């Protein structure tokens, strides 16, 4: 299982994803610079990591969309292979048209770094298989994470079960207080129609070790393996 970690100028969590995947047995990763991403055929899955690609100028992910890497990522996605975009990655996937909606500045305009709970709303994706209905605790770190779309798109996304993660309290209730950025209907992540492309604002790569406060992210990343794996390594694992 070979995973591409795309790196645009300004991306910074490709190294965090590389470390996180190093704890998942049987998964190999390669950081791919955006100019060298012409052919992703040799990879089984692709990650669009977090960061401030191109400084998030104009709009988060707006300039990254123009990079050749994004065009080959679209081809990769259309071939049905698993793609996960976290934070800036989610913004890039929306800008590229691979996912519905757009990410606006947070309500209240402030950057938020915190732990949140999200409920897994759809298990029909390579990343959430076997996790349907579960409440995961993951960190967020963003200033433009307010997912919005026009009324028809919101209705379609809900009706077709394309909402993958929803901000909730620890019991799984999608309350107003649990919504950190004003996203429509507490939506924290959505998937493509085919289901292989998923974008979410939280950072799974930041919660794969108990040492850093949580392991629920491990269950998302480890879902790439043939059979789903239980909870992540309790202790920091030396590689």
């Amino acid at each position, binding site marked *: 299982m070979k995973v591409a970690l795309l790196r645009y100028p300004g991306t*910074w*969590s490709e190294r*965090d994803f590389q470390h996180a995947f190093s704890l998942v047995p049987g998964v190999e990763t390669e950081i791919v610079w955006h100019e060298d991403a012409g052919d992703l055929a040799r990879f089984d899955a692709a990650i669009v990591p977090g*960061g401030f690609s*191109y*400084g998030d*100028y104009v709009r988060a992910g707006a300039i990254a969309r123009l990079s050749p890497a994004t065009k080959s990522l679209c081809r990769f996605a259309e071939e049905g292979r698993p793609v996960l975009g976290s934070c800036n990655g989610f913004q890039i996937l929306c800008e590229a048209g691979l996912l519905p909606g757009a990410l606006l500045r947070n309500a209240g305009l402030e950057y938020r*770094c915190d732990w949140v709970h999200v409920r897994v709303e759809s298990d029909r994706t390579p990343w959430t298989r076997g996790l349907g209905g579960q409440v995961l605790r993951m960190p967020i770190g963003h200033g433009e994470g307010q997912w919005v779309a026009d009324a028809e798109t919101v209705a379609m996304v809900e009706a077709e079960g394309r909402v993958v993660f929803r901000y909730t309290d620890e019991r799984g209730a999608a309350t107003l207080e649990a919504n950190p950025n004003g996203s429509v209907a507490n939506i924290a992540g959505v998937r493509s129609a085919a289901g292989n492309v998923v974008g979410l604002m939280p950072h799974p790569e930041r919660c794969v070790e108990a040492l850093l406060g949580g392991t629920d992210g491990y269950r998302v990343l480890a879902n790439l393996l043939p059979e789903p794996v239980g909870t992540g390594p309790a202790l920091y694992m030396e590689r």
Partner: protein
Amino acid sequence: MVTGTMTAKPDLPREAGLTPFEAERVRALAGREPNPLEWAMFGAMWSEHCAYKHSRPLLRSLPSRGPRVAVGPGENAGAVDLGDGLLCVFKVESHNHPSAVEPNQGAATGVGGILRDVFAMGARPVALLNALFFGDPSEARTRRYVSGVVGGIGSYGNCVGIPDVAGHVSFEPCYAGNPLVNAMCVGLVRRERLRFANSARPGSAVYLVGSDTGRDGIAGASLLASFELGEGGEEHRPSVQVGNPFLEKLLMEATLELVERDAAEAIQDLGAAGLTCATSEVAARSRAGMRIDVETVPRRAQGMTPYEVMLSESQERMLVVARPGRERDVEDVFRRWELHGVRIGTVTDDGMLTVTSAGEVVATLEPRWLADDAPEYDVRAWAEAPDPAGGGAAEPTVRTEGAPLQKVGLELLELLACPAVASRRVLYRTYDQMVGTDTVLGPGADAGVLRMKGRRDGVAVCIDAQPRVAAIDPFVGAASAVAEALRNLVCVGATPLAITDCLNLGNPERPAGAWQLERTVAGVKAACEALGVPVVSGNVSLYNATRGRDIWPTAVIGAVGHLADVASHIPVTSGRRGDAVLLAGSAAVSLGASAYGARLGMHEGPVAIDLALEARLHRFVLAAHAAGLVRAAHDRSEGGLAVALAELALRDGVGMRVTLPAVR
């Protein structure tokens, strides 16, 4: 023949910020009348901000050696040895005056500058900390400063992708017109990858890489920080530096790749006094000359004169001296990172810094004159303690003798809500604390703790200050700041290795200001010696005052400690039913300079510190940690014992039953 391109000015030295005495010294060194550009270069390099004229004699007295010290003061940043060839590079710097002029960009460019100091040494930055000082938050102006400064720090650090893991914030009236912004950066580097500015060899190519040069900050930081803002604060306004954190991220990655490929023999970041400082310091430290052509410098504005190019403080720029024969590699790295890097000159062996413009020499000076030969002023010559008001006042009357219990409880709630004690989460929540996935303990804990992937040990970092104590006694205030920083490290079980200091003070030319500077350095020295910790880097910011009123002497101490095993810090609820709560150290009770006193409008002494007891306390807490007997330790600072207990209980969601020790 040297010509100046500026029209003749009546008093060039004064215009450049030099006193008549300093102008004479320049003429003696140069053996001739410098031209206008040369006067401006001297003015910038001999400013207080760059030359530490009033503090250098005192700073030499600070202990800077020790078994773990890998790089001492004098370089871009200091470094300690973590073992197995890994060094921890760190420094704290102030960006006070630019932040008073434009809070958002002033603070943002402060973060940019301290990041460049660390990666110029070849180290990858792994953590940011900051210490901020504002006026009373009930004033609208203060709230604008807070949102501007915090917004600037967050927007810059979050974009570059360096976690903010610890900090300090003070709200005191003396900072109302002159907020302080001290930024600290911590980086890691393998010993063999360490880079300095002193290894440029004659014949090597000199590159300037990063953003285009504009008119921003023309002699800004160096001039701004060398005069009180009150004097003609207005005309300093236009020299605002604007940061581009995205470009900084590219510059950081490119610099670290140059170091990885060993393609650069010397690296220096451009900060205060811009190109003038970088070229003269690299040349002086390498005991070489340098010849540069300002026409080759990429510019952002049209019609810039050599004067403006040499003094500009545009952000995100580095000077890189390529190893002979590696010019193509250096240019490849710049291109790969989509950076504009241009060769602007060559290192020479004629011992002169020569600046040309379109083939014509516009300045030629010995680098040493600029970088090393600024005069020193020993403030002890005119230091004078202010009148009795400065001494310890009478014992404050404790009006709460036998106050009814619930009144004390109410007072505790009010104390927990006052600006000196209230949680800073609403501020640090806007900083990314987790990027890099190494943050084991972040803001809110006693100290930040970082793990290092592939190793079992960890690094603890914190930043602290005690202005309320220093306002009464600068010596005790400075010593208490060192003690508190180290206490925070031992609370998380880390052995202190070294500190960096940023001394923020008022006008040293006045007797009281001179006395405060001398006592502050003496306090840091005494505490470092008693607690066995060297100073490896630092910064001094003087002339912090508004309309002639100096700020309180504010020694900001950044400390770095080492944890043998970081896994013991898995964050679990630390307090359990039945655990004993112990008070270690001094049980003496005094409301001197306390936050409680401040709420009642009292701000008097006595203030004191027993450094020997402090040293024993640190050894005790570390021994208890090592024996695995400690579930949680928390230090008593703002708000005293009651607040310390409340904070621990709140943090771990536990209750406590406590009987107070006999009051001595």
